[in-house]
């Protein structure tokens, strides 16, 4: 109960630091999700609608990567960006950009896997239609994506959900630095470590609320007129 009260108090007090943390969280999740989908959806559509040599191996690889533990993705990016690492000269460690890179690594397989298995199950009639219409290969892929847009929207939202809820990778490469790379999940970890359990829970509720608002907006935007 105490947590509920604190969550509301925090939200309505418009605490400057909280707003900044929410801002970083949304910025990170937006870029992670967008980049993952730009990379993942076309690849998912390709795997889901066409057959080619090595496809089953690629699918196994994708499904394995879907289970990649966040800390491992974080460690991998850390090793790349560390001072003496191959990309150390870019000075990206402990920045939001590095967090986005780690999340793209983590989320792209999810987008590819989910979208390809969805399209595999539903694209047959669409492909037949495309053939009837005499569409090109690219046109066929586009038609499949556009016909399945409400399901693909849920793929995008899953990607966003994983991004906003993830803590292992972002704390390793972001470092949870106040006013810079602290996001909601790492702030919750910090408050838990301080022993402020009810405050941490209040932050958790705010995180859920943000997730809910984003989902509601997305389903509103993605609604097809025929659904009413």
């Amino acid at each position, binding site marked *: 109960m105490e947590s509920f009260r604190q969550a509301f108090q925090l939200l309505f007090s418009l605490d400057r630091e909280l707003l900044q943390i929410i801002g970083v969280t949304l910025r990170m999740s937006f870029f992670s999700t967008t980049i993952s989908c730009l990379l993942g959806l076309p690849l998912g559509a390709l795997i889901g609608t066409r057959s080619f040599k090595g496809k089953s191996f690629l699918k196994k690889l994708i499904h394995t990567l879907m289970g990649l533990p966040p800390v491992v993705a974080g460690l991998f990016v850390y090793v790349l960006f560390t001072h003496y690492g191959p990309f150390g000269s870019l000075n990206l460690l402990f920045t939001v950009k590095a967090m986005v890179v780690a999340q793209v690594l983590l989320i792209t397989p999810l987008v590819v896997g989910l979208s390809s298995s969805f399209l595999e199950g539903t694209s047959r009639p669409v492909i037949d239609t495309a053939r009837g219409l005499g569409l090109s290969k690219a046109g066929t892929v586009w038609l499949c994506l556009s016909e399945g847009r409400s399901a693909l929207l849920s793929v995008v939202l899953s990607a966003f959900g994983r991004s906003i809820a993830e803590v292992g990778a972002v704390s390793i490469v972001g*470092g949870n*630095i*106040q*006013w810079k790379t602290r996001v909601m999940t790492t702030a919750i970890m*910090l408050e838990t470590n301080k022993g402020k*359990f009810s405050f941490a829970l209040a932050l958790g509720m705010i995180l859920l609320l943000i997730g809910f608002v984003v989902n509601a907006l997305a389903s509103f935007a993605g609604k097809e007129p025929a659904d009413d």
Partner: protein
Amino acid sequence: MKKALALILAAIVALSFAACGAKPTTDDAATTAAPTQTAATENKVIRLSTTTSVNDSGLLPYLLPTFEAETGYKVEVQSAGTGAAIQKAKDGNADVILVHAKASEEEFIAEGYGTERLPFMYNYFVIVGPKDDPAAVNGSADAAAAFARIRESKSKFVSRGDESGTHKAELKIWGDNAPDAAKDDWYVSAGQGMGACLTMASEMQAYCLTDKATFLSMKDELNLDIVLAEGEDMKNTYSLIAVNPEKIDGLNTDGAKAFIDWMLGDEAGALIAKYGEAEYGAALFTLLDK
């Protein structure tokens, strides 16, 4: 195909529940059956809530096997920052605490959660920094003077920022001159444990206040040196406090007392006084005069 998958999934879920359910009973059987039949009436598990510096430095893993072999008790160690370590005890999840933040400890006792604060050992915080020491911290009279030099030169400084004992000690040294993380971009408030902060300081070539034990245990991985050790304002005292049975129920008060008596005794004292000599060439903790 879908049906088969669903069945397999259901089986996995059922199995994992069964496994989770079965685990505590086998553990109970193991712990209660091991010493004697009296275990059924006498609680042999002591829950110790402590800070990461005591546990991660290897001190507890070094001491506890001897205590457990001599007394038949089993000590369950939960290690976290001092703030969380104390909160767990307030929530009734620990019998005894071993921490290093005097003000928080006194508050713990003032609120009735503890009976007596028993300081028993200390070490020194050290300031670590880049090997070339750009702020010329080396040779400062004490930590406050060293911090002033870091502040003047705006050299990067990584702070725990997590209300741990080390963070509170750092804030005390800054005093009224504490930097503001929102404005002073050389001051990095990391909000993480000692190990993560040292790694970050090494990456950024920043200064950092740390307990000596954690730094020495990680030294090989870090590109940092000790730039100031043993200032008078860098003393770090550790205390034991038994949780008050009149405030919290379900405690193992006998176990907590046995643990505290043993830790304050001569045998543990001798073990503590020489801990670290073999590995680091110098003892990590010093006993307080009784």
